[in-house]
């Protein structure tokens, strides 16, 4: 009975939150942000309260098998993915499962007319897992750590546009920008800004999030244990201010073998299997009691160019364009990803990213490729090296196909398959000379995505830079630079989208940055007993409403 009241209160709270969020918003220009989500989240909550009434019908523990563990449970350091951090930590804002910006710890927010000063009003009923009451001062401590240029964390540079972030009183938080940024809300809602407990910051320093004990957030789950490379336990946080999780415990087990994960779901050892291979996806979907969820993701695979390669042809945009034309993306998707329903991407970002406009899938045209090569003076072809890694789903196979397809255009490719460690160490802020002498790749596989906004996605990786710390392939194009700079301060949506459309066009048809391949899907194999499964384009599962019949 107590549970029911709780759920009902949560329902009211959620509805009021959804309504409250955006009401004080003087900014209505953001693409699709805000209140449209109220009906859906309402219905979900109702559904939830019904479920909680039927005691004993649902499992207390859900098992989720996944291929890779997390690196850090520190929102300011984690690069693994966005599957786990949002379960433990909440920020002032966040995303719902359709990538819309929603209020979390903030109840409402407003901006000054010049979009330079943003004021957030905090809820008063937010607690950390440790029991600490969350106030604006905690948010301030979090931002002090995030913005500290002396002791930078991984995401410090991403928020360098913030001039100050201070608590005005216990429940008011004010962010002042150096200049108005079109993408501010998108960037601010990312889980990198999640609120940390200042006591933990003090106590653990850079070790925060390296063990289960050092995790303390305001999110719907507590970390109930973490054995690296083995398993992580999500425990329901009963004092959560929003909907309380429906399942007491969710266990994430690390099972590195794809085949073993499939068997685990088939034998009922797991309720959710993450990272299903394209071939297994079809087979598992056909099995009674298992379904496969395929939803649009916002990441894509691409093979990026080393634009400053000492292998001279690669420095010529015409040659890079020729390589792009010589690759048959449709065939590659048919070959490798048909089981997942993945298709070639038609821009440099996914349709769910703010700023997206389709510029069409680059056509497959070997004749054109040959003509371009001849124009550039390489009619007889040339030799090059492509790096790939099995870290990406079917990355090695994709490399193998590239070798074959580029042969048609007269390009002789040597494939180099590297381990995760070598892959990661290549983006250590090298100059082109250092990179060429140490690695010597002319093209390399990359994943791109995870951002909900064109600026946060692209600026970092394509704006001219001296080292490859973010711009991995030393891409440089003055026109693209100008457009990026313009896009980041243009507030008019239409004008802004035009900037990114032009960028996409240049990157596709004039001066390629990489060969964009498939738009990825978020794929999960689920037991039919799983209810309320939903996953956002950035691949964050809604574990709060997730439940599993016995």
């Amino acid at each position: 009975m107590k549970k029911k009241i709780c759920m009902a209160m949560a329902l009211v709270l959620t509805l009021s939150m959804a309504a409250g969020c955006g009401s004080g918003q003087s900014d209505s220009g953001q693409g699709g942000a805000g209140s449209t989500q109220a009906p859906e989240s309402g219905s979900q909550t109702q559904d939830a309260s019904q479920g909680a009434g039927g005691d004993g019908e649902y499992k207390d523990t859900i098992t989720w098998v996944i291929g890779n563990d997390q690196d850090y449970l520190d929102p300011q350091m984690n690069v693994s993915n966005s599957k786990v951090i949002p379960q433990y930590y909440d920020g002032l804002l966040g995303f719902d499962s359709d990538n819309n910006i929603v209020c979390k710890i903030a109840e409402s927010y407003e901006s000054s007319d010049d979009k330079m000063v943003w004021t957030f009003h905090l809820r008063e009923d937010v607690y950390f897992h440790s029991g600490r009451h969350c106030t604006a001062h905690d948010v301030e401590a979090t931002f002090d750590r995030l913005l500290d240029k002396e002791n930078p964390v991984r995401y410090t540079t991403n928020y360098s546009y913030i001039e100050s972030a201070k608590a005005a009183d216990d429940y008011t938080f004010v962010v002042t920008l150096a200049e108005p940024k079109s993408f501010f809300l998108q960037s601010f809602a990312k889980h990198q800004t999640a609120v940390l407990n200042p006591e933990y910051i003090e106590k653990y320093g850079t070790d925060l999030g390296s063990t289960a004990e050092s995790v303390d957030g305001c999110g719907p789950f507590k970390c109930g244990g973490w054995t690296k490379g083995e398993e992580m336990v999500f425990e329901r946080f009963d004092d959560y201010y929003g909907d309380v999780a429906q399942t007491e415990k969710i266990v994430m087990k690390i099972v590195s073998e794809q085949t073993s994960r499939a068997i685990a779901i088939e034998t009922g050892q797991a309720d959710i299997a993450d990272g299903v291979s394209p071939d297994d996806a079809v087979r598992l979907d056909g099995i009674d009691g298992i379904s496969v969820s395929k939803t649009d993701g916002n990441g894509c695979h691409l093979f990026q160019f080393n634009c400053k390669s000492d292998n001279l042809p690669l420095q010529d945009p015409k040659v890079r364009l020729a390589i792009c034309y010589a690759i048959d993306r449709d065939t590659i998707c048919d070959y490798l990803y048909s089981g997942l329903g993945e298709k070639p991407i038609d821009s440099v970002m996914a349709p769910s990213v703010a700023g997206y406009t389709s510029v069409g899938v680059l056509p497959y045209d070997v004749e054109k490729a040959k003509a371009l090569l001849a124009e550039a003076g390489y009619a007889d072809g040339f030799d090059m090296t492509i790096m790939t890694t099995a870290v990406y789903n079917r990355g090695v196979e994709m490399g193998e196909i590239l070798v074959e397809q580029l042969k048609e255009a007269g390009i002789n490719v040597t494939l180099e398959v590297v381990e995760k460690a070598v892959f990661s160490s290549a983006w250590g802020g090298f100059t082109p000379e250092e990179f060429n002498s140490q690695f010597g790749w002319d093209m390399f596989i990359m994943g791109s995505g995870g951002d909900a906004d064109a600026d946060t996605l692209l600026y970092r990786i394509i704006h001219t830079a001296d080292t490859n710390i973010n711009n991995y392939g030393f891409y440089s194009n003055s026109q693209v630079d100008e457009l990026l700079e313009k896009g980041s301060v243009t507030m008019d949506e239409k004008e802004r989208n035009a900037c990114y459309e032009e960028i996409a066009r240049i990157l596709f048809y004039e001066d390629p940055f990489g060969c964009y391949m498939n738009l990825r899907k978020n794929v999960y194999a689920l037991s039919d007993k799983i209810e309320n499964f939903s996953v956002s384009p950035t691949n964050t599962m809604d574990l709060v409403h997730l439940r599993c019949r016995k």
Partner: protein
Amino acid sequence: MKKEKTFLEKHPILRRFMRRKISVLAAVILILFVLIAIFGPMVWTVDPLKQSVMKKYGPITLEHPLGTDNLGRDTLARMIHGARTSLSISFAGVLSGAAIGILLGVCAGYFSGWVDAVISRFVDVLLAFPGLLLAIAIVAILGAGSVNTVIAITIFTIPGLTRMVRGCVISLKNSEYVQACYTMGESDMRIIFTHIIPNAMSQIIVNVTLSLGSAILTASSLSFLGLGVTPPEAEWGAMLSGMREVVRTYPMGVLVPGIAITLVVMSFSIVGDGLRDALDPKLKNN
């Protein structure tokens, strides 16, 4: 008929070897695979790298007698080229390892003293790395690829052979025959190359044959751990581990390379045993 008899009579080793039918069968299988590796690509001229989208996981047809793989490549062609890769990796690794092992073993056994001490400790240390772990560590240092797999197998092979040859040499050195050579004033080199090595040869051959089989297993284990040959090169272990994800939807994908590996490794063991019996009847049953 008569001619053959005299041939076998002239070669007692071969005759003893031929006595066991299973050894003969295994030897035939090995010779067959070696022939396939050498001449196969000339007979079956399909390109093992040629991909074809419509044909992935293809059934057995005249065009593709063993079906096709995940990229629509002809499995038979890949098996043939894979035989080349797998066998040459294993031969190259084991033979170079054997050469170094024999050299070290002979030095240790013949010169004794500090040479023996240094070499023996070195071998002890190599032997202290549990099996596959040594190969993993070596490939981790050098990076994946067929040449580095060969190096890993080479180092993997050295300690066992060194130890065995050393033992052989020590027992031969004390034989009356070699002692006699000493007193006749023959040089060390001459004694080593004309008397000791030829006499240790039978054991060396047996050991090398057995190592060849385990080298194929080591190479395939490395491929499974993602530390083996670089794709798209065809290698049996890589083919096997590459197709394990589709083991249920397309079992042929793992069965073909899996059976080939098992068959060849088994054959090496059987031939090795057969040779042991044939070369040295006293060692029988051991």
